[in-house]
């Protein structure tokens, strides 16, 4: 008994801390132009690979660009595009899931078979395949990730709609004359929100990892835009002389992703959602 109370308070702290870290990161990504000490793409070969100083708190990279500024701006790219992917795939998944769930019949069958088909692929393999056919570039990566990600939302939402459609409170609402739109807004959305929040939080972490991995492979963000994965790719050449060039951006990714994962897990504990790894 005691342990379960302890667990509850622990998960509450985990939730608060991880949420706080993420808020800081989001603030950094919004405020980057004001808090960054330098222009992140300003090349100055005279001071290349310099060690930390008051002027450049984390030193400079091989082109003499301020490392701290690049890391701060990197948050912008990672969090910004991950949020975009999240919003777009959730929106589309919500739409498809609702249609499939409410309409049923052959529309449902067709849409869900399509989802199953996409899910039959290893996730990133399909993303890489799409990027491969569309060609390297940030927007191609974003589109590819969206094309793969929405399927999971659609499937989850469709499942919830189908199971909820039959329940008494929906029937009661229908009998008392609520329109479908109102039922969706007032009864369905509040119920699907918790699992969406959990899934969305975890997906944000994955999206950030995937974006950085693709940038690392050279398929995503193209230089000189500061992005953590691309910074690791650039910094690896100096692994013997200046390992911090590749260590810092990796720590940033680790920090953000771990926060998203901890937040997702504590949310799922909080809402009592059982999740399979």
């Amino acid at each position, binding site marked *: 008994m005691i*342990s379960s109370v302890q667990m509850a308070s622990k998960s509450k702290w985990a939730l608060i801390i991880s949420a706080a870290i993420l808020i800081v990161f989001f603030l950094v990504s919004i405020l980057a132009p004001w808090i960054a000490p330098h222009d992140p793409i300003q090349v100055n070969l005279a001071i290349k690979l310099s060690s930390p100083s008051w002027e450049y708190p984390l030193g400079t990279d091989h082109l003499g660009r301020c490392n701290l500024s690049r890391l701060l701006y990197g948050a912008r790219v990672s969090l910004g595009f991950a949020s975009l992917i999240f919003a777009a795939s959730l929106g589309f998944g919500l739409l498809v899931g609702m249609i499939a769930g409410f309409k049923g019949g052959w529309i449902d069958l067709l849409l869900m*078979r399509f989802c*199953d*088909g*996409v899910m*039959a*692929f*290893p*996730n*990133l*393999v*399909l993303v*890489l*395949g*799409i*990027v*491969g*056919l*569309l*060609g*390297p570039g940030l927007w191609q990566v974003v589109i590819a990730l969206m094309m793969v990600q929405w399927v999971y939302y659609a499937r989850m939402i469709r499942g919830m709609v189908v199971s909820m459609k039959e329940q008494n409170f929906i029937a009661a609402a229908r009998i008392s004359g609520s329109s479908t739109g109102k039922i969706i807004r007032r009864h369905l959305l509040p119920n699907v929100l918790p699992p969406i929040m959990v899934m969305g939080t975890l997906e944000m*972490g994955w999206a950030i*990892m995937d974006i*950085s*991995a693709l940038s*690392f*492979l*050279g*398929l995503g963000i193209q230089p000189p835009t500061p992005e953590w*994965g691309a910074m*690791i790719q650039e910094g*690896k050449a100096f*692994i*013997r002389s200046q*390992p911090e060039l*590749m*260590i810092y*951006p*990796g720590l940033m*990714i*680790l920090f953000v*992703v*771990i926060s998203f*994962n*901890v937040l997702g897990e504590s949310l799922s504990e909080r809402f009592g959602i059982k999740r399979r*790894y």
Partner: protein
Amino acid sequence: MFIYLIKRLLAVVPIILFAIFLMFALIRLSPVDPAEAYLAAANIHPTDEILAEKRHEFGLDQPLLVQYVQTVKKIVQLDFGNSYVTNTPVWQEVATRMPATIQLAVSSIILSIVVSVPLGFLAAIYKNSLIDHLSRLLSYLGASIPQFWLGYVLIFLFSVKLDMFPVEGRGTWQHFVLPSITLSLALIAIYTRLLRASVLEELENVYVIYGRTRGIKEKTIMVKHVLRIAISPMLTGLGMNLGKLLTGTIIVEQVFSWPGFGRFFIEAIFNRDIPVIQGYVVLAACLFIVCNLIVDLVQLYIDPRISRKGMAES
């Protein structure tokens, strides 16, 4: 059991057809014309004449349905066409590079099982102990560390600083150490948590109490009964996470300059080598499906109750 097997095998066919269809559709939808991509990769100056000739050769001037049927027919015979860059059949390229990738994947699977089975098991038995907390920390790290970064950090620590293992390449057993660790950490994270959860679930069962009342040794109950059943979801996890392993090899091969198929795939993306891209994705999907099938069969062998459940459902 036999019928179950046949049903599972038949279910694979539409998925593979869909995989081929998806790639086919993507190639047609993408702004790149395969004929132009071929000429660019082969360094031939594109004139209208050559383009038209190539389009005819690739069958691009035929109706879409005919093209699709042709594609399926070819792929079923394992003919993915020739690589635009090397002009050798894609299948041959796969065959020469696949062993390196499979070696890497297998060594990582072995490593992750060797670590996660005892770790997850002990974490469940000694719940909330130090080992449980450690396993939790490890699983968070494993789920959140970017693989390519982990690879470089390991290179930095063990190759640059300690000079224990080679930085890149393939040959001796030392070459396997760092790539396998890099690749398996994410898997260890998942399997440890999976096993811990399923052991905890099994411990609630009546047979555990029954075994204890009968005076069977705790160790026997745990290893012979609990672990045997609890390992089943982990096997499913093994199959489900094969995709992670596959994409992991792409990244790890890039980091450690491992001469496998993943690197070839990335090169193909840069070269717009469409047959190779298509071949990789379709083969990856097939591999994924087949391995999941094998996992199901192994599970059936370990825990025969599943087949009864499966038959009741289907």
